[in-house]
């Protein structure tokens, strides 16, 4: 750092797009430069008054609390929690949404990983749980948690997203809601498990098999059909989530992980995989996750979660504390593969600048993007737009609505699912007091 040569000098902190977006290269490993810029800010009167004299607080003067066997966040973080749709466990499904606007980086902590459960959380004894693979195979086989634990494993970063994530944005008017309410049915973890192809190697595959159905041990025996092509590509029987056993709300003791495919297909508590010659047309693929299109047709088997991004900082629920430097950051991901580019606009899409992508950029996983920004205190509209390595680009809202439609009446319930697979851009409008609203632009 101290021996930086002149050719490594950062670009000047000149705006690269409208309303104060700065060159992304100013951010990459160059904290000293930013500090210098902040000083320049002070000189131009944009920073606050001098700090108060320092003192010792009580926690610096006595021994602290006992160290717990399993630690949880500080009591001061009590508001960093999932929002739940069914806290009294009534006889219906339950959602718990990830607070993206309160998190950073790319890994969703296990306690905050989103859950949709259609019949509560089963209390599964891992010693009793079995996974059977049968149907159009040469030899049906039964596996246990213990036996799978002896198999060669892989560890991969992947997001899981409910295909109803962001569904309130089908509303004809922007619902005033946070990134948690709008986009909280998507989370990202490091998954460890056994490739399904390894197990299918052992059962053998009858050439007539074109699909498999995967079924859970939950009370609904939730099942989905998966093309054999996907099963042999990157499907995994996942046993671990961020290093520990999978959470009950995410499929304990094992789930089918289908990287990049809609969340519901990643069958939790998976107990049965049957190879079949036709799709099962299960309740969820035949109804819930089949979308009605504006022309009166319906899509079947829209499996891929397409390229998407949204800004988490700043976003609805936060406010800006006066003009000056801020880092815009957010999450981008695609079920097609790696994120290749994210652009950010501060003027509602009139001009765009390329954001920095936090390495490593994993396929079918969250990528954090960052963009330095100097806010001049005037109203702005912040947006992000992502591209992936397949060449797919996140559609602008007008493009998306033209193809997929929107509701006739505004959606007022953030828990509503007017349709599925919304992946257009999110716009945050910031007024001259620093207040943030959800807008369409």
């Amino acid at each position, binding site marked *: 750092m101290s021996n930086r040569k002149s050719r490594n000098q950062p670009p000047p902190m000149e705006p690269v797009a409208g309303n104060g977006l700065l060159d992304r290269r100013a951010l990459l490993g160059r904290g000293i430069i930013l500090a210098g810029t902040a000083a320049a800010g002070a000189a131009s009167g944009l920073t606050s008054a001098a700090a108060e004299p320092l003192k010792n607080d009580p926690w610096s003067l006595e021994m602290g609390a006992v160290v717990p066997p399993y630690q949880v966040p500080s009591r001061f973080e009590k508001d960093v929690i999932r929002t739940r749709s069914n806290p009294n466990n009534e*006889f*219906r499904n339950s959602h718990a949404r990830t607070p993206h606007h309160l998190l950073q980086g790319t890994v969703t902590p296990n306690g905050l990983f989103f859950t949709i459960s259609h019949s509560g959380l089963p209390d599964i004894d891992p010693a009793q749980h079995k996974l*059977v*693979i049968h149907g159009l195979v040469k*030899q*049906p*086989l*039964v*596996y246990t948690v213990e*036996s*799978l634990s*002896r*198999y*060669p494993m892989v560890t991969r970063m992947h997001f899981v997203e409910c295909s109803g994530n962001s569904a309130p944005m089908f509303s004809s008017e922007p619902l005033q809601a946070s990134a948690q309410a709008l986009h909280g049915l998507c989370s990202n973890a490091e998954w460890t498990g056994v490739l399904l192809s390894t*197990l299918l*190697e*052992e*059962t*053998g*595959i*009858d*050439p007539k098999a074109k699909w498999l*159905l995967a079924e859970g041990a939950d*009370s*609904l*025996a*939730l*099942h989905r059909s998966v*093309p054999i092509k*996907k099963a042999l590509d990157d499907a995994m029987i996942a046993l671990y989530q961020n290093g520990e056993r999978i959470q009950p709300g995410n499929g304990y003791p094992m789930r089918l992980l289908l990287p990049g495919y809609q969340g519901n297909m990643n069958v939790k508590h998976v107990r*049965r995989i*049957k190879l*079949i010659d*036709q799709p*099962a*047309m*299960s*309740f969820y693929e*035949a*109804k819930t996750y*089949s*979308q*009605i*299109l504006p022309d*009166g*047709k*319906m*899509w*079947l*088997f*829209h*499996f*891929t979660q397409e390229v998407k991004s949204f800004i988490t900082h700043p976003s609805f629920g936060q406010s800006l504390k006066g003009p000056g430097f801020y880092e815009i950051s957010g999450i981008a991901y695609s079920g097609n593969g790696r994120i290749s580019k994210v652009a950010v606009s501060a003027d509602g899409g009139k001009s765009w600048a390329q954001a920095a992508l936090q390495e490593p950029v994993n396929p079918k996983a969250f990528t954090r993007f960052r963009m330095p920004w100097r806010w001049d205190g005037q109203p702005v509209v912040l947006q992000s737009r992502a591209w992936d390595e397949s060449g797919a680009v996140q559609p602008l809202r007008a493009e998306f609505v033209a193809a*997929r*439609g*929107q*509701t*006739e009446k505004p959606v007022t319930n953030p828990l509503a699912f*007017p*349709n599925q697979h919304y992946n257009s851009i999110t716009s945050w409008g910031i007024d001259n007091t620093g207040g943030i609203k959800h807008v369409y632009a």
Partner: protein
Amino acid sequence: MCTRKPLLALVLAVAFAGTAAAETPGLGKPISEADIAAWNIEALPDGNGLPPGSGTPSQGAPIYAQKCAMCHGENGVNPARGYSPMVGPAKFDRIDTFKTVPYYKYATTLFDVIRRSMPYQMPKTLGNDEIYALSAYILSLNKIIGENEMMDAKTLPQVKMPNRDNFVIWAPDKI
């Protein structure tokens, strides 16, 4: 990979360490299809998996009234708050049209979801005749079948659902 006999392959793998199959541990225990029967409950669109038994709409009506109506509403309409009706128009002209039974491409989906998931508080307690009767009753309420039509493993897959021809596969190359 698709043609090898796995048990033989595992034996060979032990005998000839270094072959490709030696990479899989072979810890799955063989099981017969007969011993999977309790879990093997799906009904496929072509009727594969449908069990013996039968039922008519009039046989289904009292079962529905006793075990289904408290959530899904009497006669399939006016459900309890937060639950789905079982009857609705077969017209899906808005992107947020509520989907009821007429949305399904195949009638087997209805039978399957009752068999595996319903009644919600005590799933997998209905007999096969009851499931056929409930399927018949709900299809009849929607006027998809006649009031006296019997549903069984042969007739259920032949039911022509009203929305069947409106589906398109999103990306056939991914299947």
